[in-house]
Structures are given as structure tokens and as C-alpha cells.
């Protein structure tokens, strides 16, 4: 499969406070609507973005999200990349387990978000930060 290529310019939203989680949801929703994702897929992507934005805020000490439309030549999708310069995730396998959580919520953040999207990738380095990338393809 070809690597997804961006279509147009990525939109960026900083994540530094609770209200920014709502702004992330609104931004992701508007890009998903423009890319003609179905209502259910929009809702899944926006919900996943909400979980990931809260992770960035709570565990990463804040950061930013980049939202862009991508294509693999056949399909159009939305890619959201959450970046922070926080402590990183020490045990990735554990962090992806249902019920695991050190912050607020139900410990569904990472594992739940992964289930709601089509592609999911985490790069993390202790003390350097974390990048979580997720893609939802239009059907």
C-alpha cells in the first residue's frame, strides 16, 4: 500500500487547556465533513480525536494537533497527528490496554481511540514526547 499523501495544507490547533479539546473536535469535524466522511465515521473520528486531545493535555502536558486530508491514490481520508513534548509513554503495550489510565476518564483513551479509526500509530521516546497518528478513510 502506498504511503498516504497529504492533500492541501494541514490545519493546526494548539492543545493547552480544556477548551482546546472542544476546538480540536470542531476542527476535526469540519475537515471530516469537507472530506465527505459518513456521519458515523465523522462521529468515530471526532470521538477518537477528543480522547487523544485529552491524552495530549493530561499526560503530555499539552501540545498540538495537525489535521489534514490525505489520499493513498484510491481513497480519501483524514489524518490527525497529536504531538507533545511530555514524558513519553514508558510501557506502550500497557498503555494500550483497556482500563489502563493514570488520568481522568475510563482508561479507554488510547485503546478506545485505536478501535474507532482505520490506522493508528504511536511514536514515543522517554523524556522526549509522543506522536500519535490516526487515519480514518472515507468509505
Amino acid at each position: 500500500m502506498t504511503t498516504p499523501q497529504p492533500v492541501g495544507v494541514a490545519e493546526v490547533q494548539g492543545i493547552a487547556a480544556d477548551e482546546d479539546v472542544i476546538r480540536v473536535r470542531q476542527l476535526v469535524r469540519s475537515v471530516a465533513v469537507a472530506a465527505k466522511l459518513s456521519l458515523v465515521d465523522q462521529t468515530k473520528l471526532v470521538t477518537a480525536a477528543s480522547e487523544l486531545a485529552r491524552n495530549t493535555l493530561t499526560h503530555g502536558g499539552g501540545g498540538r494537533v495537525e489535521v489534514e486530508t490525505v489520499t493513498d491514490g484510491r481513497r480519501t481520508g483524514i489524518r490527525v497527528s497529536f504531538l507533545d513534548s511530555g514524558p513519553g509513554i514508558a510501557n506502550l503495550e500497557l498503555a494500550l490496554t483497556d482500563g489502563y489510565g493514570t488520568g481522568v476518564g475510563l482508561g479507554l483513551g488510547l485503546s478506545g481511540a485505536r478501535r474507532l479509526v482505520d490506522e493508528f500509530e504511536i511514536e514515543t521516546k522517554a523524556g522526549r514526547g509522543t506522536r500519535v497518528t490516526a487515519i480514518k478513510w472515507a468509505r
Partner: protein
Amino acid sequence: MQRVPVLRLGDVLLVSIQVDLADELAPWLQEDLADEIVATGARAVLIDISALEVVDSFTGRTLSTIAAVSRVLDAETVVVGMRPAVAITLVELGLTLHGVRTALTVELGLAVLHGGPTASLAAPAADDLRASP
């Protein structure tokens, strides 16, 4: 700060969530509802989420906590008006809304609380069994 208004409908408290439940708003709603239940002796809380386009694990946890606190204060909680796309997403997310009853509309929610068909189906009345001599 914008607060969520709590309306009183007989012995039912009605909350219609029209805004994205920001993190700092959720504790206020929990406290306001607990205060109102005690002040009014309400027996139930009806939470209308038909305006919410997204329910994430944070909002879900808020709803579960409200239900748990209400139960301790002898009031039942019914969440009404969930959008289909939200329901599908919640299930895939793995959120079960533990301890929260649901109904499709405010009307059906009230029916559930007042012992409508759903409620009597769910709990066959023990009284009926030993009523007749």
C-alpha cells in the same frame, strides 16, 4: 462560567445538555444536580443529550458518576435522546455507561420513570404475585 440549567418537572429534574460538556463544567453539573435532588426531594434525573454530537469517555464518565450519586440520594437517572451515531461510537469505544438507564425521548424517559411499559417489563411486580388472596 456558563452553567447547565436544571429544570423541575414534578418529582423529576430535567437537564438538557446543549453545550459540549467542557471539563470544568462537568463537576458543576454533578454538584448542582446533587444539591437539587436533596433540596427538592426529586426521585429522578432525566438528562437529555440529543444536542450532543460526540460523547467521549470523559462525558460518559460524567454521566455514570451523576447516575451513581443520584442513586445514593435515592433518585434514578435516565439518559435520553442519544443520537444513533453516538450510540455506535460509544459501543466501539468500549463505554458501557454503567448504571445509566436510557430512553429514546424525554417522553419515553418519563414513562420509564412513572412505571411505563418498559419499567414493568424490566421489573415484574412482586406485589402482583401475592396480591390476590
